[in-house]
């Protein structure tokens, strides 16, 4: 056996960590190898150091003192434990001595307090705001190009932060009262509203009444003022056929959701607002909508899709898309903007979001919309600063 192999195992030999066979083998080698034998002895000498009494032993008095100190410390531990137990028991007794009803009331009060604290913390940041920093002039220009008309009487200040309510009020006007709603539906010359303004249908109560009298079609082409009862029931005839729609009618007091039974299989949802349109006109609009939808689905280009919808909406000014459709539109604008990364496309997207803020920034998808809007804003800033 080579000395190097032996040397590597000598420590184990010193530590008695070798098997009997290995021990005999090594000891046999050591008996005739001076070098390995010296190494082995050195190891033993070093180990002997560990056994050395290199410090002076304490005197007997120390051991007595040590013992007393330990017992005294144990005594303190016992006292402390007893005190803790006593305190815990007294707390327990105090709690148990209180009436059950008071205890429950205490717990309930704590729960209510916690609820309010959490609630306040959650809504601590205040109302929702739309931070907008696009250039006002550009914004006006872009929205006009799109065919959306801003209120010319007032300038919309888009440089400042706009609250949701401000966006809503400065956008298209929505008639709020039933009287206004009636006027908007049946008045041929409603000067108050632009043609593309969303026309409202009567309130739910009135809608239901109209549905109930749906067997009495009313001529929508009449320019005379008519009452709510005379609203074109035929408008809702399709919806009556659709079981789904009866639930949807009147969801929003200002807008009716209309789903054609014909297209139910394709799950088309079109929000058709009527401004003295006949049933015929509605059918035509829906057909056109369906055609555009199919065409857009076949098109890969996002820009082409957007153009299709823009052209459709321009030629059908009375059409207002459903919330779902608006979300899909917004996504198209967002995708185009993030794909092209040009100022124009980003502003176009942001203008669409703002124009349709009432629909987009409410509801379940509002968080996604908000995120998208913030991304667009950040992207615009980045391009503007040239980063």
């Amino acid at each position, binding site marked *: 056996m080579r000395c190097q192999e032996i040397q590597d195992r000598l*420590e*184990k030999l010193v*530590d*008695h*960590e070798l098997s009997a066979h290995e021990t005999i083998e090594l000891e046999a080698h050591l008996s005739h190898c001076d070098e390995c034998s010296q190494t082995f002895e*050195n*190891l033993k*000498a*070093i*180990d*002997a*150091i*560990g*056994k*050395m*009494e*290199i*410090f*002076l*032993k*304490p*005197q007997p*008095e*120390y*051991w007595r003192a*040590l*013992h007393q*100190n*330990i*017992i005294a*410390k*144990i*005594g303190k*531990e*016992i006292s402390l434990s007893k005190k803790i137990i006593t305190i815990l028991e007294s707390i327990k007794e105090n709690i148990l001595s209180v009436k059950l009803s008071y205890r429950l009331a205490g717990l309930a009060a704590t729960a209510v307090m916690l609820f309010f604290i959490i609630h306040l913390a959650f809504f601590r940041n205040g109302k929702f705001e739309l931070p907008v920093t696009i250039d006002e002039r550009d914004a006006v220009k872009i929205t006009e190009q799109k065919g959306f008309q801003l209120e010319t009487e007032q300038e919309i200040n888009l440089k400042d932060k706009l609250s949701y309510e401000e966006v809503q009020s400065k956008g298209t006007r929505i008639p709020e009262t039933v009287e206004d709603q009636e006027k908007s539906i049946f008045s041929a010359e409603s000067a108050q509203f632009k043609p593309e303004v969303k026309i409202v249908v009567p309130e739910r109560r009135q809608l239901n009444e109209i549905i109930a009298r749906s067997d009495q079609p009313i001529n929508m082409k009449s320019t005379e003022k008519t009452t709510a009862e005379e609203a074109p029931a035929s408008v809702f005839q399709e919806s009556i056929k659709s079981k789904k729609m009866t639930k949807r009618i009147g969801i929003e007091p200002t807008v009716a959701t209309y789903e054609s039974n014909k297209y139910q299989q394709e799950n088309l949802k079109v929000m058709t607002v009527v401004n003295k349109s006949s049933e015929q006109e509605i059918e035509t609009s829906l057909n056109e909508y369906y055609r555009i939808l199919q065409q857009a689905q076949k098109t890969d280009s996002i820009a082409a899709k957007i153009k299709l919808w823009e052209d459709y909406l321009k030629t059908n000014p009375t059409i207002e898309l459903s919330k779902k459709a608006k979300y899909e539109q917004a996504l198209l604008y967002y995708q185009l903007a993030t794909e092209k990364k040009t100022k124009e496309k980003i502003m176009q997207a942001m203008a669409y979001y703002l124009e349709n803020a009432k629909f987009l920034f409410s509801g379940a998808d509002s968080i996604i919309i908000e995120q998208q809007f913030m991304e667009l804003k950040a992207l615009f800033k980045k391009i503007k600063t040239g980063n």
Partner: protein
Amino acid sequence: MEDRIKNNDDKEDLKLVRRAKRGNRNAFGKLVLKYQQRIYFTVRRVVLNHSDTNDIVQDTFVKAFVNLNRFDENYAFYPWLYRIAINTILNHQIKISRIKETFTSSEGDSIQQVRLTAADPLEEVLKKEFKDKVAKALRQLPFDQRIVFTLRTSEDLSYQEISELLNISMGTVMSRLSRARAKLKEQLQNYLS
């Protein structure tokens, strides 16, 4: 170290432990008297400093008393106490690293110390200078190496036992032991030859 109860000594310990569990301080006091010196010297060989050793020994017994309910009566008391001592040493490791006292001077020690008796064979061979050198060499060992070296040489524990006590692998035990021996050899080469 044999953990299981084997002999009468272990059984005597168990009787005292049971009484101590019932709150009998005198019973526990007898266990302290029986084992305090052994624990002291084990700790002292690793720590090398009397005042820290004093603290660690006291802490060890107090911890043992507080945790008596966790003691498994199927096992011997001393190995359990020994483990507590090692853990207490490890917890005091930071303090141990600030050793200042030398073994030769009485400064820092609040107690009088006695010299080793002439019956100690090593005492006859080794000179005081060598003892100083040895103490210095041990003190200069990193704590991790020193504790392994001490447990192996003065406590005569196996690699396996050291591994379990310090919660390190057998390989680590061997490597630390090897490095400790190499450093001590380097420091004390002249004396070894």
